[in-house]
């Protein structure tokens, strides 16, 4: 019996357990509300259904959250991702709209390449501020968050640029191998990031920098270079997300593209079990977190609730997930529930939080 209990404790104690429970509950609630929710059909060789829609719409958030995970792992934060997405989407759409033939693949590729290059520059700017000058990440990226919105509006001259370009639209709503193209991009980026961080030493080095930048530098890690790198990667991810968001609606609105995506991304990362203190990151958790947020948004739309009121639900879910994961809350709760249980696990947990 005791082994069963420890096994159960092992399962419930896994960092992905509670996020997955929340995701399953959300999906179940949707299915109860609308039994057709889980059905997926094949039309014209493409898969359709609510689940596929959730996956497709969560692709930009997954991308941004991936970049954000790496930044948060170094103990930083990147508030500028929404603005970077807006700037890149605006530049790409502006370039395409000036082409004589908007459907030419070459033109679209050039537009995407230019915008991607700008994103790398913006990421490098963040990286220089944080790693080079040593400004706190939250402030350094706040600069670009505020100014970036202005830049995006400058690019679009305060207008909404609409384009009519099939190749560009593919990024957002196209299909490949029955799946939406956006999912495949997100999946590919996830795989690349996972391979680079978990099959090489890069992931461990990033965590080392997040744990203690000075100690890692003394241990021979070029911590500044790593910090610089994560901001560039984050901006690159944001740029691709920006392409998807603008391609989804075939237009670029400097004000609206990627608005609050930085907050959603940070939430996804935190829900996934990555602490904002840095030193650890869990890509799988981040993806589950992003899916939770998108499922929540989609279910709220499906249930005809005002999207703004949906924020209430988001607040409740965020606080619930964060509380469940907070070591202090768990320890308190466990002690009250079972005073006889030896407090080995809670004590260990509390030790972890002391340096924070």
């Amino acid at each position: 019996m005791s082994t069963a209990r420890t096994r159960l404790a092992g399962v419930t104690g896994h960092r992905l357990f509670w996020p997955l429970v929340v995701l399953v509950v959300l999906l179940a609630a949707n299915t109860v509300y609308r039994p057709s929710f889980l059905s997926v059909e094949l039309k014209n060789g493409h898969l359709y259904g609510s689940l596929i829609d959730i996956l497709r719409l969560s692709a930009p958030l997954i991308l941004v959250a991936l970049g954000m995970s790496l930044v948060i792992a170094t103990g930083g934060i990147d508030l500028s991702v929404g603005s970077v997405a807006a700037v890149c989407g605006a530049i790409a759409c502006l370039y395409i709209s000036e082409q004589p033939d908007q459907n030419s693949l070459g033109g679209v590729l050039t537009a995407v390449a230019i915008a991607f290059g700008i994103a790398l520059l913006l990421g490098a700017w963040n990286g220089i501020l944080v790693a080079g000058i040593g400004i706190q990440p939250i402030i350094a990226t706040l600069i670009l968050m505020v100014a970036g919105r202005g830049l995006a509006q400058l690019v679009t001259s305060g207008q909404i640029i609409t384009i009519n370009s099939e190749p560009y639209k593919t990024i957002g709503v196209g299909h490949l191998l029955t799946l939406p193209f956006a999912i495949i991009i997100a999946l590919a980026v996830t795989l690349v990031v996972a391979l680079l961080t978990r099959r090489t030493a890069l992931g461990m080095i990033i965590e080392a920098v997040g744990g203690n930048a000075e100690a890692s530098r003394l241990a021979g890690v070029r911590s500044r270079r790593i910090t610089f790198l994560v901001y560039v990667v984050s901006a690159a991810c944001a740029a691709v997300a920006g392409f998807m968001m603008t391609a989804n609606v075939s237009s670029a609105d400097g004000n609206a593209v990627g608005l609050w995506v930085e907050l959603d991304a940070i939430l996804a990362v935190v829900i996934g079990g990555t602490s904002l203190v840095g030193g650890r990151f869990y890509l799988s958790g981040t993806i589950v977190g992003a899916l939770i947020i998108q499922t929540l948004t989609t279910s709220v739309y499906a249930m005809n609730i005002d999207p703004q009121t949906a924020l209430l639900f988001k607040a409740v879910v965020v606080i619930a997930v964060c509380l469940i994961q907070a070591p202090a809350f768990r320890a308190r709760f466990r002690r009250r529930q079972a005073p006889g249980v030896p407090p080995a696990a809670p004590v260990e947990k509390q030790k972890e939080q002391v340096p924070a």
Partner: protein
Amino acid sequence: MTTTPLAARGPRAWWRVPQRQVPVLATLALLLVMYGIGVSQYRAFSNIQVVFNIFIDNGFLLVVAVGMTFVILTGGIDLSVGSVVAMTAMVSASLLGDGVHPALVLLIALLIGPTLGFAMGCVIHFFDIQPFIVTLAGMFFARGMCTWISSTSIPITDGFWTSAAQERIRIGENFVTVSVLVALAVVAVAAYTLAYTRLGRNVYAIGGNQQSALLMGLPVGRTKIAVYTISGLCSAIGGILLSFYTLSGAPLIAVGMELDTIAAVVIGGTLLTGGSGYVFGTLLGVLVLGVIQTLITFDGSLSSWWTKIVIGGLLFAFILLQRLVGIRKK
């Protein structure tokens, strides 16, 4: 960190200003230069009413920024302020629409913000969750409440509210509104609290080094909860001032205000790591934002998005300055 004023009393040249005051003085210089540019470029700018209008248009921002100063001084951050401002305005508007007595509405509206702030402070302190995440949830909650109350804008026609909004307090040939007086009173009270009360000194001590403050026996938890409550109260006052200013409650008003507020506090010379800064600096920071907007309005040919780009540039300049001052100290 907080003992610098003591150390600063030693014999030294009179022209040397204490290093922690350099950012505030830089802001003051910037403000004077920008005002000078305005006066030299536009004849109407020298009218003293322009200055009063900056106060009238930014009174609520000033109050909210004062609350944010408390939070940032402890090294925390409060992202919920903009939503709490909107929620307060919404609640007042909807209660007034139901015919509730204005005094009661005022009381309820002033209680909501601090209650939410207190709750967030408790979660931050007792469960040790980052302020960023907790106040983010608070922001979502308050914004959701706004639309839950009403998805459209509610006009305010109550007699007390309209008279408070339209009252012109004459100063010579010019005038200010009630909101400006309230805002300045809040600034005065906050400056006194930070400089001369036990709570104020605790705030600086926690921002300087929380561990040391704890070891010194200072009430760290109580102070941390207090600053979020104060920030909530300031947001509530700001929300009422905003409802005076617009005479309505709208669910999407004050979106992104938290960024303006943080920018004002940083431009005002408060360190985001906490422990150093003044309410007076925050006042200057808000004025700088106000003068930028006024300059862009006077120019007429510049588009509104230049405001954001200029604010971003200023943020960069001031953070760089703080950094340089910090390096010199070492």
